[in-house]
């Protein structure tokens, strides 16, 4: 009997945690997208004001606590220091980051394609590239924020309901 009760409790707990996990992933995704947007804004400002080269920009980004979540940045910085091409390094490291983060594939594609022109054009081209991606991420964030309020509640509720349902069935 005790074993059965323990099993029910564990299953219910798993259901609640799963609901909570999915809810948290939505929040995390929004936070990450906001950080990425902030990063692009930072890059744009630095390029516009001081024309800071990419290697120095990456160094500044890595040292900035606001961007600690973007764990692919230090790897790209190291790659560039070792003479590896920015574009291929960005694709590789951002790709790996996306796989183990809460970002969706379409978010990832946007992040990866940002590097296609990064550093490869004149000042105006760089500013326009940054502006375009800031707008794209902002659009994504707007729709996501609208959806998130409902989906966070739904995931939590679903988890709780599954837990209750499992408990009733199994008890």
């Amino acid at each position, binding site marked *: 009997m005790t074993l059965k009760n323990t099993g029910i409790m564990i299953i219910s707990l798993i259901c609640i945690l799963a609901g909570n996990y999915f809810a948290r992933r939505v929040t995390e995704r929004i936070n990450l997208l906001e950080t990425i947007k902030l990063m692009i804004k930072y890059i744009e400002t630095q390029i516009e004001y001081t024309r800071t080269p990419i*290697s120095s920009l990456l160094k500044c980004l890595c040292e900035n606590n606001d961007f600690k979540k973007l764990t692919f940045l230090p790897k790209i910085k190291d790659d560039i220091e070792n003479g590896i*091409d*920015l574009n291929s390094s960005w694709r590789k490291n951002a790709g790996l980051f996306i796989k183990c983060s809460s970002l969706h594939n379409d978010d990832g594609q946007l992040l990866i394609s940002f590097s296609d022109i990064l*550093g*490869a054009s004149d000042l105006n*081209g760089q500013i326009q590239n940054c502006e375009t991606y800031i707008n794209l991420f902002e659009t994504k964030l707007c729709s996501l924020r609208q959806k998130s309020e409902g989906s966070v509640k739904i995931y939590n509720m679903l988890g709780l309901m599954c837990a209750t349902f499992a408990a009733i069935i199994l008890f």
Partner: protein
Amino acid sequence: MNDVNEKGFTEILRYLPMRFQNILVKLPSGTKCSIKEIRLRANKPVVAVTEKGCAFLASNSKLSYILNDTMPVITVAEIDDTVKKVCGFSVYTHQNEIVNGFVTLAGGHRVGLCGTAVCDDKTAISIRDINCINIRIANEKAGSAAELISKIFYSGLQNIIIAGAPMSGKTTVLRDLVRQISDGNAGEYYKCAVMDERCEIAAVNGQVFENNVGCNTDVLSNYPKSLGISQAIRTLSPDIIFCDETATECEVDEILNGIMCGVHFAVTVHGNNFEDLLKRNISKRLLNSGLFGYVVLLGERYNLGKIEKIMKVGEIDLEKYGNYDNISDLYSCG
């Protein structure tokens, strides 16, 4: 000296395509030190310019002065990659330099770029289809200006013109002169200002100078010389200003104006010999001003930093140089 050259050679290696890095890194130490320039051209073998002339890079890590078909050629994609690397993947940082056909690397190495100019009505606004890259390895030759210190500057600051052909070591001598005057070798710790328009003299990397330009030197990096000179005079109160490769009338105007303000100048100009200086408008204007005390002529190409002759302007027998008269109508402005 050899250590310095090999350091420069090692510094530029990382910008080259990997397969050429692997070949070049195995060159004998003496050969590495003798290389002054590395030239990359699309679909052509790599050329290394040494003191003996142009040599081609063979796949067995040897330089050959005779071209043959087995030599590895550099591809267009490798040229593109090299351009990206020398720009630090940041074309926007170097867009003005690219228009002028060069990028300066950390360490002061100058990379010349050659391709198709993109022009608007009057000037080039960019270069596309870059097909040739010339990497010139910077040299720090400590002591190359010692003769100038003992013969010219020991009795006090002077205005001097240093002239030489390309690759004769004008920048090398100027850099050592800055260092020695700044460090007090001329008898006093004079305040020095360097117009480092191409970031070759001090090779500033971030906020640090990679080349030794002395302890009492202010470096204005990337400033157009004419702007930098007036700014230095107004804000830095230098005793002497150093300008590399004086090439435009406006720069001459600013230099002459600076001398009138009581600042001394050491400038370099292109010219194989004194006759060449008299033929070129820029150097002729400087000499004609009567404000420069000495002309220093450097030796032949590839003989870096060798001082051939020091001439005191007042003692030059101008008759010897033919039709030299005071051509004041060449003065454009100022």
